């Protein structure tokens, strides 16, 4: 049996931040010509391990060996020179430049008079073609293409630099199914050429589809390294969280019982609600105490429609009535005054106020409703803090900590608490479980079911179709900025029904989606 040498070998890596040990004597190895997935909850240390490998964080102890040589990386440029390229979850490119400039930044083709732009763009277009992105023009501004495309450009950039190790940190969060398959095809091609690929993802299906090997981390420690075929799903999840999938089963049972209760008092009715360029005029109805799911591919307009329901964006057309009376939803202030609350998918930019404490974040919306002149008393604030930190299980339990110090999952819980504190009749949740660990996901989904049982209507948006099907009584299916249908979720409705509805919807004449210029 030939003993292949690993391309990357990390031994006994430890990194500590003030108050938390992020990595505790972690081992990791990566062989050429394989896709190796790193799995673990948020806070398990995956991102930290990658940042240690790519020179973003210095290590406290342990060793990193690349291609047999001991290395100490001081910067990302160091790591790149050693052949390690990384593509991050947020698109780390410059939207003020065009695609070709982004692809070739740092390696432009030079001539006698500095950078030769024509040759550079030729090289850029070639790289794009190699990644199946030949339909893009390298002179296009990066900001003019979708986030999904930008992500693929980011991955292409890694390939331009002739990487021997390609690290992909949650690369598929913004991609739809077809784009993911496209990506995987490219990754398999790279793997067959001998590139070592380190893959991090929350999506179990994708992990099983692409990986050769899986390493599990938990609470900063190495749990084990396994060959994918030898590790089944339940065991993987239990290794990661110590709980098991039974928790989800009980949520499904609770959700199903909700559906059969079937009260149909109408809370909100929207007619012709739309915004030019974002979502076409749509009719919608939300019933009291129901969980209404929005399903669709990326870019189908779910978030845009939801934002119109809250007033986060101003609609161009249509009107909304609540319990029969016409209401105006032109700003978040109006949304809140109509007892609607909205939890954005973009936690960092539109949700958390990082430097303020957890307490201040929790009471923010309630305080905003009351206005600046009527501050909440200490007692009122404490009541909110105690109730929601307890009910949602926010950890750590000190409400005076700055919000930014909390993990993603706990920040999401605090934000949920912020909206619940306003006592909404309709709570809109946009991707509330994105980027958070399995344990917190379950807790949030439980909370949604309980809310609906108590009479609050919930609009639930998620890219994970299973979640939507599991929780919703009814699903609004969207595609290409419009609603294509609704599905009432019975006991034998599965994600396939949603997929079928999206696929069977025929595009308007004169516009075909799946065509590419040769």
């Amino acid at each position, binding site marked *: 049996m030939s003993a292949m040498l690993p391309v990357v070998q990390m031994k006994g890596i430890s990194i500590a931040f003030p108050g938390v040990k992020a990595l505790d004597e972690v081992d990791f190895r990566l062989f050429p010509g394989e896709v190796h997935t790193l799995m673990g909850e948020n806070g398990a240390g995956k991102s930290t391990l990658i940042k240690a490998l790519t020179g973003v964080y210095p290590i406290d102890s342990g060793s990193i060996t690349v291609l047999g040589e001991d290395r100490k990386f001081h910067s990302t440029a160091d790591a790149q020179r050693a052949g390690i390229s990384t593509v991050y979850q947020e698109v*780390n490119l*410059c939207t003020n430049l*065009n695609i070709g400039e982004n692809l070739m930044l*740092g390696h432009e083709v030079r001539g006698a008079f500095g950078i030769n732009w024509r040759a550079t763009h030729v090289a850029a277009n070639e790289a794009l073609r190699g990644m199946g992105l030949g*339909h893009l023009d390298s002179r296009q501004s990066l900001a003019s293409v979708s986030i999904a495309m930008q992500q693929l450009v980011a991955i292409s950039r890694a390939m331009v630099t002739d990487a021997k190790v390609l690290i992909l940190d949650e690369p598929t969060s913004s991609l739809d199914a077809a784009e993911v398959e496209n990506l995987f095809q490219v990754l398999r091609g790279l793997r067959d050429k001998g590139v070592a690929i380190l893959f991090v993802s929350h999506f179990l299906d994708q992990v099983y589809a692409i990986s050769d090997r899986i390493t599990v981390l938990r609470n900063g420690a190495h749990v084990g390294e396994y060959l994918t075929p030898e590790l089944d799903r339940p065991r993987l999840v239990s290794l990661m969280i110590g709980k098991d999938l039974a928790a989800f089963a009980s949520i499904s049972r609770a959700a199903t019982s909700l559906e059969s209760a079937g009260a149909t008092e109408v809370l909100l009715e929207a007619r012709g609600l739309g915004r030019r360029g974002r979502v076409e005029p749509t009719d919608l109805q939300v019933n009291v105490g129901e969980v209404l799911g929005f399903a669709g591919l990326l870019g189908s307009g779910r978030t845009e429609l939801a934002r119109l329901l809250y007033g986060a964006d101003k609609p161009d057309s249509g009107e909304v009535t609540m319990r029969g009376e016409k209401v105006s939803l032109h700003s978040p202030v109006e949304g809140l005054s109509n007892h609607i609350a909205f939890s954005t998918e973009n936690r960092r930019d539109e949700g958390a106020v990082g430097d303020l404490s957890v307490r201040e974040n929790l009471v923010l919306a309630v305080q905003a409703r009351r206005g600046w002149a009527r501050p909440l008393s200490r007692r009122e604030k404490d009541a909110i803090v105690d109730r929601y930190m307890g009910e949602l299980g926010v950890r750590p339990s000190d409400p005076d900590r700055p919000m930014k110090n909390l993990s993603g999952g706990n920040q999401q819980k605090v934000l949920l608490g912020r909206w619940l504190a306003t006592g909404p009749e309709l709570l809109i949740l946009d991707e509330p479980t994105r980027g958070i660990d399995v344990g917190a996901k379950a807790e949030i989904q439980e909370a949604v079911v309980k809310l609906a049982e108590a009479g609050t209507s919930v609009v639930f948006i998620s890219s994970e179709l299973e979640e939507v099907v599991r929780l919703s009584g009814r699903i609004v299916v969207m595609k290409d900025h419009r609603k294509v249908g609704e599905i009432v979720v019975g006991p034998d409705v599965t994600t396939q029904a949603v997929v079928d509805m999206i696929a069977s919807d025929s595009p308007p004449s004169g516009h075909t989606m799946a065509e590419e210029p040769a």
Partner: protein
Amino acid sequence: MSTMTASDSTTLPVTRWQRLTRSLRDNPSMLPTLAAVALFAAMLIYGELAYGRILQLNTMSNLLINNAHLVIIAVGMTFVILTGGIDLSVGAVIALSSVAGVMLAGAGVNPWVAVLAMVLIGTVIGAISGVLIQYFDVQPFIATLAMMFLARGLASMLSTVPQRLDNDSPIRELGTPIKLIDGPKVNDLVITVGVVVAVVVVIAAFFVLHRTRTGRTVYAVGGSEGSAQLMGLPVHRTKLSVYLISGTLAGLAAVVYTARLGIGQNITGIGWELDAIAATVIGGTLLTGGAGYVLGSVVGAFVLGLMNVLITRDGSIKPEMVTIITGGILLVFVVLQRAVTSRQRE
């Protein structure tokens, strides 16, 4: 095959018109720059119609000669603003440089050494700004404000009265007129070495920004510093160098200005950093960084210079109105930039 939305698929432009509109669509930041050019042209025409003798060689010559120093610091300011920073020290650097240089020359030091010293003073001040910003995490506004205070204070400590250059000092040669085109009577196209220096600076800046990796890094840093860092670009080195460039160019501008006037004084250059910023903004550079053209800043500088000419020529506009008018022009351009960027965001 990947599915995509309609905006992703493109056809390559065929005609020259298509290429131009495509260029504009891909680079919406060009619009304010084009507007600045249009404004300049409009001002020229208006001036000629209202006052006469604007569109002629000697007026153009004066415009070039009198604004050469402003062009140079506007170029330096463009580099800094492109990275999302700001340099408030350029006016004060010019004061310090010119006072020190003239005093050196007057003390018998070799005039070319004095010139070198003038430029290097700018480099040193720029270096201090850069180090404060890069290695001590001081915000650019504060760091360059401190340098502005420092330079102006030092200039005042050197001398509070004007220092004159000797009449036969070789430095003055940099300011002697060179006749390029001999027109009828006094209507000649005349430039100075200072103007040539300005032209060289502009060409060099254009080359660096569009044809070198350092220049591309400048734009990248302005677009997203975090991304540029993760892309492995030499962010720290580049951010330091833009302040070095701005300082050095301020020193160079001091040479050009002093050569023309023959005087170094501690109150020189008060408010010139604002002129440089105004020129840069009018020229289409975004204050938030990442977009802008050095040629635009040059046009912006000439817009300001021409405005001064027109006001002087008019004679009926009170001096106190000048600042109000400058403010008004700036307002128009900023609103224009805003309209462009908000459409981009849609």
